[in-house]
């Protein structure tokens, strides 16, 4: 596969990571804790979409190789993720009287409950959406790019969702309130912002985007009860690289981590790829360490610049 091919794959995978990392970052800045249940929220969304798609079927026509029914299933998945997250906030997190570390530990329990319930309902095996696999798009193959129309749909949907979030944050009342609350919750509260309601909206948006990411992850790979938890640390890496609390940083971090993850095979043959580097030079790291690279980057960022790329100084 050529460099362009890897970049194209990276773009698809990045879209999924970006969807996950935005929600994690939002919750981190507004609810003020590291939510270890975020990965499993993605799984919840994916399985909700799986059930819906199985129930409604294709519904006739198709866009980019994906039947209409899949887009309906995507919306149901997003809604399911949001509802589950808000219910968790109301029933579990709100009554707690602990600090952010206590919330962090609690969120691990939440993650286990989500995953266990899914595993009891669907078994531990891998499943797929019942959509026939597509051949790669013909006219791109000469460039060494093997992406299907499904991959294009993933990137396009992610762009739509992220643009929507941008508009929401920048141009709506809710977005202004959310930014105010992320900045200074106490000040936001005395200014008359209903912080509790904003927290619910944060969960709706964060979990909804995560669920969408989960549905696309299921389309890109497969579905399994562990799919979200396995991706959680990669998403944390993205959020920390971008800077905790910054939505735009999370987008950038997600993009970079997703790219690096898919470009790992190139590391062992850097010489062929880069100009000015002798042929045969390479960093001998196999693709099995793709996630490990992300984690090492994460630790390095935490040490060198804990605020991340886009984060503000000294939170």
């Amino acid at each position, binding site marked *: 596969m050529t460099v362009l091919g890897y970049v194209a794959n990276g773009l698809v995978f990045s879209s999924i990571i970006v969807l996950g990392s935005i929600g994690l970052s939002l919750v981190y800045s507004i609810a003020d*804790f*590291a939510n270890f249940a975020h990965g499993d929220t993605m799984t919840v969304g994916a399985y909700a979409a799986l059930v819906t798609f199985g129930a409604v079927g294709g519904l006739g026509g198709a866009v980019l190789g994906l039947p209409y029914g899949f887009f309906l299933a995507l919306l149901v998945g997003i809604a399911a993720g949001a509802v589950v997250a808000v219910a968790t906030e109301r029933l*579990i997190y709100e*009554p*707690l*009287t*602990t*600090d*952010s*570390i*206590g919330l*962090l*530990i*609690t969120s*691990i*329990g*939440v*993650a*286990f*409950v989500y*995953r*266990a*319930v899914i*595993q*009891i309902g669907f*078994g*531990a095996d891998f499943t797929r959406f019942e959509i026939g696999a597509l051949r790669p798009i013909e006219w791109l193959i000469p460039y060494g790019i093997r992406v299907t129309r499904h991959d294009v749909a993933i990137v396009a949907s992610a762009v739509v969702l992220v643009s929507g979030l941008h508009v929401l944050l920048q141009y709506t009342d809710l977005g202004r309130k959310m930014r105010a609350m992320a900045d200074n919750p106490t000040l936001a509260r005395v200014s008359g912002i209903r912080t509790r309601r904003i927290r619910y909206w944060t969960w709706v948006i964060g979990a909804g985007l995560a669920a969408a990411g989960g549905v696309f992850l299921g389309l890109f790979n497969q579905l399994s*009860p562990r799919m979200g938890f396995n991706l959680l*640390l990669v998403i*944390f*890496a993205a959020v*920390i690289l971008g800077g905790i609390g910054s939505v735009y940083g999370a987008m950038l971090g997600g993009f970079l981590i997703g790219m690096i993850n898919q470009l790992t095979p190139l590391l062992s043959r850097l010489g062929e790829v880069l100009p000015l580097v002798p042929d045969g030079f390479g960093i001998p790291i*196999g693709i*099995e*360490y793709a*996630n*490990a690279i992300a*984690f*090492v980057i*994460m*630790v390095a960022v*935490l*040490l060198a610049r*804990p605020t991340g790329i886009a984060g503000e100084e000294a939170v």
Partner: protein
Amino acid sequence: MSLLGDPVAWVSELTRPETWVLTGSLAFVGALFGALAVGALGPTYFLFLVGLAGMYALLSFGLNAQWGFTGLINFSVAAFFGVGAYGAALMTADASPIAGGFSPLVGLAVGLLVALVLALLIGIPTLRLRADYLAIASLGLAEVVRLVVLNERWLTNGSAGLRGIPSFFVGWPVLSSFPETMPGLQITVVPGSPVVLETPFWEAALNVVVIAAFTLGTYAVLRRVHRSPWGRVLRTIRSDEDLARALGKHTYAFKMQSFVLGSLIMALAGVFYTHLNLYVGPGDLDPITTFYVWVAVILGGSGSNRGALFGGIVVVTIREGTRFLNDLAIPVDPAPLRLLLIGVLILVVMRYRPQGILPPQRELIWPAARRSTEPATPTETGVRARGTSGSTADADGESDGDTATGVIDDEVEDATGGERNG
């Protein structure tokens, strides 16, 4: 007040949760022995469970030394457990790809040494981080360790794991042949179902001896250091690191010492596991082990060693007990059920008893100091006790007002001063 000297007074001094735990434990032990007597529970498997419970207790002690004492959120328990197990297995197993065939004592030393190096490698960068970053970073680095163990076949035999591990006492004078030389015993408690004790039983009994020695030794050391001035600094760091620094303590060094101590204890548990299970695979480094141990420590009461012991036993009961559900004709896959129970347990503890069931109380007070406060004769020195405010709640046991993570140990300490009136 010792248990042997004056049992009635000892029991009457217990707090309510302590009484519950004592009653529950006695009932549980009674049920186990009942099952043993009627043959429902094989004696060899029972001793295996005791070994496993001891191993989890040891892991919980290790985490307690980090989280309970110092407040370090270490999510890489599985990595230290795993390198301890792999270090021992690689040295002792016949099928080891690198060395193999050494004495288990060499394996023990190597396992601990590897864990020490790993603790420094993980600790040096991450211990400077904020608490929640430490959690994420340590989980990430533990995952790196797991990936290395899984993929470096030349070193660890990859996903196939390591077999051919000898028992811990191989090569020792008497103990190495002890299981074979012991005669087979047959005990009949209930007529018709005799309990047979043969070689595997004696092997398991030796394992219990090993873990009992490890656990009791660790418990004694931790109990001593927790009360020492060193332990007091750790507790201060846990409550308020800035305060410790302001008092002139080099908190990074103390955190590192506590991290290394806990990691070595976890590796010790890993070494034991190698000789208990006689097989080690990359699955043993799965992050779920980390969270099992976390549940044990949080449930037992962060900072409390006996709580860690209690939590370890509860976790083994959940882990092993769910295997029998299918025998009882409950058609649920045990793996997700175990996960569900662990998850619900975390939620319930954090919601209703965030300080754990047996939070540290009197165990932090020197026995001598406790005796001197008991007569409660008003002292007339005119010296005010350090921090008299709010120091009554914890000293007499029931303390539901504690915050989630900060069981305020300092208040208990005040009782050691002997200045305060009873």
